[in-house]
């Protein structure tokens, strides 16, 4: 008796709990109060559904087993009952109200327009995220860092395959962080399951949501709205630090930005060797250009133009720089003037003009990029 009941207990209660607590099977509880509420709500509705399902199908299978023709069952004659029908219209109503109450509560607690400690502007573009710490003068792009060789199965995949980026969004814990979402091109959706935050980034509009993280850690999510070819390759990575560590990180980021400006200024007087530019150029190309123009420079016919033998790439250097800097409005070609440093730009343009048989022999220096930027802003 004891053995049987404890086995039953194990199967009926402990096992499902083990299974459901497993992140591989079930929604995660996450690390915010809201995500915990959402998890509880999810479990409540799930369990109610299970109970209803068991009752209804128990009745059905009872009938299937006991009211079989092969067992000689004779059909009854009843085919309506106002009482029963009213009852099973009314009971679901009551159950729905029971579900709606906690759902409404959670939804209202999500809607909080009080002042935030920190505001991050998130801009989606094909296929990367841009984070701006509002009022702090810190901003950067966050791009998938999984190497192409892992995606094409040439090397083993890392444990954070497709969920890793070059620069994660760094956030403080225990502070209300407000997110403003917008998009540079198509609709994207910023999703971190551990925060229960998913919000669409719509071009031309801003959307708002917020979170307050309870625990330090690295949290990973993905773009949730189909946004074109590499929709599956634009992850979100958030690093939650203690308030002090975050403050340190922020001042370091500001310092790094100032240092980069100095380094850029120093570059203007330098002539970089072609080999260095080609090596860096290939890296930049793979990270920023290869998604559309393909690692082979062949593009996708009818979708993304080829760079190999392209009249722009083989043509006038100035025009080529202009396209890379400012993009082509109304197409998927983005403006890279804000995305890449002058050194990276010089390198990637050099690379394009010399790779895949585009043997122009041209070497573009950072100073030429800077000149092009200055020329457009000082024209006339």
């Amino acid at each position, binding site marked *: 008796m004891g053995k049987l009941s404890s086995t039953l207990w194990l199967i009926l209660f402990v096992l499902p709990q083990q299974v459901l607590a497993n992140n591989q099977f079930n929604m995660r509880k996450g690390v915010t109060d809201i995500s915990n509420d959402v998890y509880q709500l999810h479990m409540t509705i799930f369990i109610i559904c299970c109970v209803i399902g068991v009752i209804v199908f128990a009745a059905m299978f009872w009938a299937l087993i006991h009211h079989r023709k092969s067992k000689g069952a004779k059909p009854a004659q009843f085919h309506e009952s106002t009482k029963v029908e009213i009852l099973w219209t009314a009971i679901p109503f009551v159950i729905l109200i029971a579900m709606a109450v906690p759902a409404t509560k959670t939804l209202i607690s999500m809607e*909080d*327009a*009080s*002042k*935030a400690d920190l*505001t991050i*502007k998130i*801009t989606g*573009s094909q296929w990367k995220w841009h984070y*701006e710490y*509002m*009022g702090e003068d810190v901003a950067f792009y966050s791009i998938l860092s999984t190497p192409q060789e892992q995606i094409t199965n040439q090397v083993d995949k890392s444990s954070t395959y497709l969920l890793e980026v070059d620069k994660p969004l760094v956030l403080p814990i225990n502070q209300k962080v407000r997110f*403003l979402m*917008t998009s*540079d*091109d198509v609709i994207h959706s910023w999703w971190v399951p551990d925060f229960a935050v998913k919000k669409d980034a*719509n*071009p*031309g*509009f*801003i*959307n*708002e949501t917020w979170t307050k993280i309870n625990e330090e850690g690295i949290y990973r999510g993905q773009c949730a709205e189909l946004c074109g070819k590499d929709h599956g390759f634009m992850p979100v990575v958030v690093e939650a630090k203690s308030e002090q560590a975050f403050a340190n990180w922020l001042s370091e980021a500001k310092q790094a930005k100032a240092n980069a400006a100095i380094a850029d200024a120093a570059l203007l007087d330098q002539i970089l060797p072609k080999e260095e530019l080609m090596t860096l150029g290939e890296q930049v190309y793979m990270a920023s250009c290869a998604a559309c123009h393909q690692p082979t420079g062949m593009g996708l016919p009818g979708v993304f133009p080829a760079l190999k033998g392209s009249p722009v790439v083989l043509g006038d250097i100035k025009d080529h720089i202009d396209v890379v800097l*400012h*993009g*082509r*409005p*109304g*197409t998927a*070609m*983005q*403006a890279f003037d804000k995305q890449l440093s002058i050194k990276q730009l010089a390198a990637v343009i050099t690379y394009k003009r010399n790779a895949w048989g585009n043997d122009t022999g041209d070497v573009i220096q950072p100073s030429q990029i800077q000149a092009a930027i200055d*020329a*457009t*802003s*000082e*024209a*006339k």
Partner: protein
Amino acid sequence: MSHAPLLKRLVVICVGMFAFAFALVPLYDVFCDVTGLNGKPSLEQAKQSTSVNEAREIDVSFTTHAQSGAPFEVQSHEYSVVVKPGAMREVLFRAKNTSNEDKVMQAVPSVSPGKAAKYLHKIACFCFDQQPLKAGEEVEFKLLFYVDTQLPEDVEELTLSYTVFDISRQIVASN
């Protein structure tokens, strides 16, 4: 039995529903105005404010985003201002055409949280008109606005965002 009368009615429903799809476009704008859906604020000049609530302070921050390929830099002089509901406030924006061609700029405003959109009244805004900017030209734009005294109590801060588009090509196409 003749099918014609019923057939006619059904065809009328079909045509009507096709027209309804297009009627949804203005209806959607009305819906947005009423509910503040998507933070789509009015693009028309608002009436002057009549009263000021001295007891409340609202944080209004500004952000701009030049859509990919739009060669503009637009930025407010201040990142954010604190205003009293009903009180008029002027904010200056610096706008620059960074290309070497003449361009026409259109700024599209959006307010967050969405429910605050209808309480942000603009008296003067560069977003009311298309703004032609010569190559390399830099100008100052003025935004004159106030926050309605009716702004819901729980809203402590709001953001006015401008997305800046290059509409030069559309203008050429329509001329």
